[in-house]
């Protein structure tokens, strides 16, 4: 690889052992990916929690902290697995809770800003066109690349932490122009009325094109997508298709036209999505034994506008006896939702508000499912209905209004 004098200095240990090891790890990745050089970055968003890291990851962080690891650029954290205010009520393991606290202390000692959010792009940092960042989770990456025109690959926990310590990442993938051009087109002929519809589009397109380097170009949509719509579209594309970028003609900054989005490339396919396709998505979920006692609004965390909408829909209603309804968001939005009265409405309705977590990464989720006898999980998020399978939930996607009805009536149609 071509190294700058600064990178050679890091390798020589002039910025400490932790940065040196981080760069060596990045160089090993670079060999695999065929990267020739590094690119400086301005911001890192990383996943780091005990549920996914386990004891081995905790030991790693302990060692890094002992080596004096320090972030070279602003670094924030993704949603975590424990809401400390609710963990006892949720039946989470006290030993793991203690480890999560220890893990957070190590991250903070390195200068990591523990924001605990998977919607950093809506609440923390919005990179500009062409800005290089190193983000994970995948929903944050696809939003950065597509909606902001910033540049990031999927940077999982150790890779994002390495980028934070060295202040750079490998120049390959979505950091270079070549991979940012559209590879196929998708005409949207369906009215999309709910975030679940946008997620369903992401499922249809992602499931049939599982390829990190596939870049769909959406066009033909008659309306104006809102940020939460694009959030659910992107999260579903990344989840079902492992995709890191899409274009939306007239909406995203690198897509003033279909031709511009394709950048001179012939599309490999011209897909069309109509209302009947969406109906087939909703009809395709098995209802299992009809269990309707768990409804989840999470994955990604709820924005303030989503919180407001949920408060309107739950106003003067109540979650059915024996049912559970969870809403997850980050600390900043929850604080605003409390000030604005949305949180009070939801809590009066019997909804459990969880802060700083996403439902699918909750510590102890499988035992929690067993203890509650949950069999089905209903959500308006196409991402979470895809991602939670390892915990053996039967999952069902429904539009937001129906999800609220199911939560309040415990009836599944």
């Amino acid at each position: 690889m071509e190294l700058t004098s600064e990178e050679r200095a890091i390798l020589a240990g002039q910025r400490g052992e932790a940065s040196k090891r981080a760069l060596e790890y990045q160089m090993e990745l670079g060999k695999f990916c065929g990267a020739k050089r590094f690119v400086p970055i301005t911001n890192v968003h990383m996943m780091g929690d005990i549920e996914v890291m386990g004891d081995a990851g905790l030991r790693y962080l302990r060692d890094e902290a002992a080596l004096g690891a320090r972030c070279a650029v602003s670094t924030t954290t993704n949603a975590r697995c424990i809401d400390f205010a609710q963990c006892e009520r949720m039946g989470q393991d006290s030993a793991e809770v203690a480890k999560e606290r220890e893990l957070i202390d190590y991250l903070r000692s390195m200068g990591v800003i523990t924001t605990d959010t998977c919607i950093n792009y809506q609440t923390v940092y919005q990179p500009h066109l062409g800005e290089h960042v190193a983000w994970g989770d995948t929903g944050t990456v696809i939003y950065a690349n597509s909606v902001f025109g910033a540049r990031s690959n999927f940077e999982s926990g150790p890779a994002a932490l390495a980028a934070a310590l060295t202040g750079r990442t490998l120049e390959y993938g979505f950091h270079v122009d070549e991979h940012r051009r559209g590879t196929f087109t998708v005409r949207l002929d369906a009215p999309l009325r709910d975030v679940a519809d946008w997620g369903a589009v992401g499922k249809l397109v992602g499931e049939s094109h599982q390829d990190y380097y596939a870049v769909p170009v959406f066009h033909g949509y008659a309306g104006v997508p809102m940020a939460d719509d694009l959030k659910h579209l992107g999260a579903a594309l990344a989840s079902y298709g492992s995709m890191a970028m899409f274009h939306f003609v007239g909406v995203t900054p690198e897509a003033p036209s279909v031709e511009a989005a394709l950048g001179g490339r012939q599309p490999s396919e011209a897909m069309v999505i109509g209302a009947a396709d969406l109906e087939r998505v909703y009809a395709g979920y098995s209802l299992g034994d009809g269990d309707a006692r768990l409804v989840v609004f999470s994955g990604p965390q709820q924005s303030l506008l989503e919180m407001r909408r949920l408060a309107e829909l739950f106003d003067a209603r109540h979650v059915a006896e024996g049912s559970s309804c969870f809403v997850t968001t980050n600390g900043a939005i929850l604080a605003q939702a409390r000030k604005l009265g949305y949180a009070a409405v939801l809590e009066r309705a019997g909804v459990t508000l969880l802060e700083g977590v996403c439902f699918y990464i909750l510590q102890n989720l499988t035992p929690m499912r067993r203890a509650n006898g949950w069999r089905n999980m209903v959500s308006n998020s196409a991402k979470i209905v895809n991602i939670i399978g390892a915990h053996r939930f039967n999952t069902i996607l429904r539009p937001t209004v129906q999800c609220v009805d199911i939560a309040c009536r415990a009836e599944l149609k």
Partner: protein
Amino acid sequence: MSVGFDQGATVLLRVERAFGPVVEGEAVVSEEGFSPRYDLDRWSGIITKPGHKLEGVSIKDKVCFFPTAKGGIAAGWAFNDLKGKSIAPKAFIFGIANPVMVQGAIFAGITITEGWDRHPREIIRTGDWVRVDPESLTIARVQLRGDAR
């Protein structure tokens, strides 16, 4: 009897990119993609997602062939965690990987390859004993499923 790395192996697949030490193990050939978050019980090493084509199969100590990587950022830390719990596979062989799988495998020191010159299902069956050689970018069969080792 143990089978040495250079005895009686037939090269079956050539891969495009690879990392890690030479490893041997029992093949698990999947028709469906993989994500440790979506599909795997990370406390037992068994694929638990209902309806996954490998539902009920353990990946512990296996050489796992997956056509694609599913989404999710978890593999970065999760592969290291699987190794810490002694339930990691010997190798991941992907048709199309994504950066997360590569970052996770390299961090954990687990052999990983990407790209293949033919679909493994044409020549390798689950249960065959295979050898992965990242240096020469090859995967060889050491023993057919059911043959005595």
